[in-house]
């Protein structure tokens, strides 16, 4: 296999033994980008020169044995995370030329581990979307079939990993934005427990829901990335002062009676038969690995979309108030009064989906409507969290589909936001409750589009997720497959 098609763990071993140099690995990834980026369009900002400089530094570190866990590994970062000196747009015209003066904590950690930052990848504007079509700089295309969506909002992250345009990526997940594109692009994507990974330097969309997480080619790489990015950060007041374990300890053979709950509400009407077939096959394999299954219920599942599409926009309306043209971002310079400047800058800079959500959120929080919408949604959020608490008394993890269907064609649902919102039903609840969830590839549709299987667990139980995902991956033996017609 070409270097760009290998995993972190395979490359890191080759780099350690001197079989290959960091510069060679980065060159191979850059060559790959040159070859396929026209078709995939995963990147918003690329800096090949800087990448090669970092690779040279990595080679020095490898030589004197001071290389970190990701030393010499090319990574991409979703353009919603601040990178010092490297443009960060959040997929929006309003930040088209914004250059952050600092690195997000997760970026600092990647750099400390020796990763080579290749560039920033595309996303739905301000992480609002499930297809990455709301990117002001153009959508990324699914590497398995470029007429199809990558999913979103971390579409660029998923596409760049799947296409070999980086070895791993950092994405973010507010309502499914790591897990769903991971599923559509055939890679592993994990949303950690809320508070497990620092949000410092993550441009905020919905502060009580946002989490940063890895997208990788396999579960072993996912565990390695989690080791690098997890941990308490004093700069994030929602960061949990809980030591993260070595997640690689979860990568053991056999599930020894692990209890897997199958939530009946997730096998919903309208579930694509191929998705169902592949997920059920995955569940069989988990049984073979030693797990026991039990049918469970998350009775408030049907309300999670309504809850999310009130709470997330409400939080977003507050978080996006800062984009006013004063200190950074687009400013309408023709305005001669302050409020006009705010209004014009924001109206020119924000895309339609962002405006839609700001309006919904402002409405839900406005006087006279707050109780009926925002407060009500927050109460139902408590019920959803309680569903999970009860269910995890009866089982260790939950297994289900990630998305009701495989990826659909670009532009197919662009005028029907409601139908896209409804497709988030299987991923949203995890964010509302703050629990971790992973998407792991479990098969393909008849048209060759990837299908993912979702594993959810109780707070801080990422190890159980990784363990189940690892055992599934070992038995499926498809993690080496790569899209072959780019």
């Amino acid at each position: 296999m070409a270097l760009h098609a290998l995993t972190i763990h395979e490359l890191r071993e080759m780099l350690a033994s001197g079989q290959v140099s960091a510069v060679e690995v980065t060159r191979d990834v850059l060559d790959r980008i040159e070859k396929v980026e026209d078709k995939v369009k995963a990147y918003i900002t690329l800096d090949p020169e800087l990448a090669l400089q970092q690779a040279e530094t990595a080679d020095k570190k490898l030589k004197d044995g001071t290389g970190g866990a990701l030393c010499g590994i090319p990574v991409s970062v979703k353009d919603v995370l601040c990178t010092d000196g490297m443009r960060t747009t959040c997929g929006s015209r309003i930040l088209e030329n914004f250059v952050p003066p600092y690195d997000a904590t997760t970026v600092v950690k990647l750099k400390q581990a020796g990763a080579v930052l290749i560039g920033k990848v595309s996303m739905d504007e301000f992480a609002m979307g499930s297809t990455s079509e709301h990117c002001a700089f153009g959508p990324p295309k699914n590497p398995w079939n470029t007429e199809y969506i990558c999913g979103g909002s971390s579409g660029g992250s998923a596409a760049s990993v799947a296409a070999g345009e980086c070895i791993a990526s950092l994405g973010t997940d507010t309502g499914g934005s790591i897990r769903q594109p991971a599923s559509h692009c055939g890679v592993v994507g994990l949303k950690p427990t809320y508070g497990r990974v620092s949000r410092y330097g993550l441009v905020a969309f919905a502060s009580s829901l946002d989490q940063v997480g890895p997208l990788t080619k396999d579960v072993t790489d996912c565990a390695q990335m989690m080791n690098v990015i997890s941990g308490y950060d004093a700069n994030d007041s929602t960061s949990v002062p809980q030591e993260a374990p070595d997640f690689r300890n979860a990568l053991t053979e056999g599930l020894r009676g692990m209890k897997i709950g199958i939530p009946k509400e997730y096998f919903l009407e309208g579930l694509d038969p191929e998705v169902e077939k592949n997920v059920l096959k995955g569940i069989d394999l988990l049984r073979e690995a030693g797990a026991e299954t039990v049918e469970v219920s998350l009775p408030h599942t049907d309300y999670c979309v309504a809850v999310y599409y009130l709470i997330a926009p409400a939080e977003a309306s507050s978080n996006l108030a800062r984009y006013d043209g004063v200190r950074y971002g687009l400013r309408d310079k023709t305005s001669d009064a302050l409020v006009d400047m705010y209004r014009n800058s924001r109206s020119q800079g924000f895309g339609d989906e962002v405006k839609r959500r700001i309006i919904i959120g402002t409405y839900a929080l406005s006087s006279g409507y707050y109780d009926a919408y925002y407060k009500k949604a927050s109460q139902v959020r408590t019920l959803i969290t309680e569903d999970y608490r009860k269910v995890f008394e009866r089982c260790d993890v939950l297994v289900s589909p990630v998305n009701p269907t495989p990826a659909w064609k670009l532009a197919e649902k662009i005028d029907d936001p409601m139908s896209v919102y409804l497709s988030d039903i299987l991923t949203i609840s995890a964010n509302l409750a703050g629990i971790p969830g992973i998407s792991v590839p479990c098969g393909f549709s008849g048209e060759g589009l990837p299908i993912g299987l979702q594993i959810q667990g109780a707070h801080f139980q990422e190890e159980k997720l990784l363990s189940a995902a690892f055992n599934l991956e070992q038995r499926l033996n498809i993690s080496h497959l790569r899209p072959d017609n780019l």
Partner: protein
Amino acid sequence: MKITPEEILHVANLARLHMSQEEVGAMARHLDDILTYVVKLNELDTEGIIPTTHAISIVNAFREDEVKPSLDREKALANGPEQNGESFVVPRVI
């Protein structure tokens, strides 16, 4: 639950967004879809349920009141559309 153009314009003003007639029309349609959908939350009895504001409960995330280096002024001003080396320059308020 039909949202009126007046309500949309009021909310748009709160959010400091300008909306053309056309945009108000399109927004009204989409918002109606969403607001009609979320009405289903009223099927649930939430009497006495405490709203969730924090997924994970953390109390008193404080630090010691020590002076630490902050962001260098030049860096802080660097992305400013208009700045005079000291502050951001904006049009008059009134």
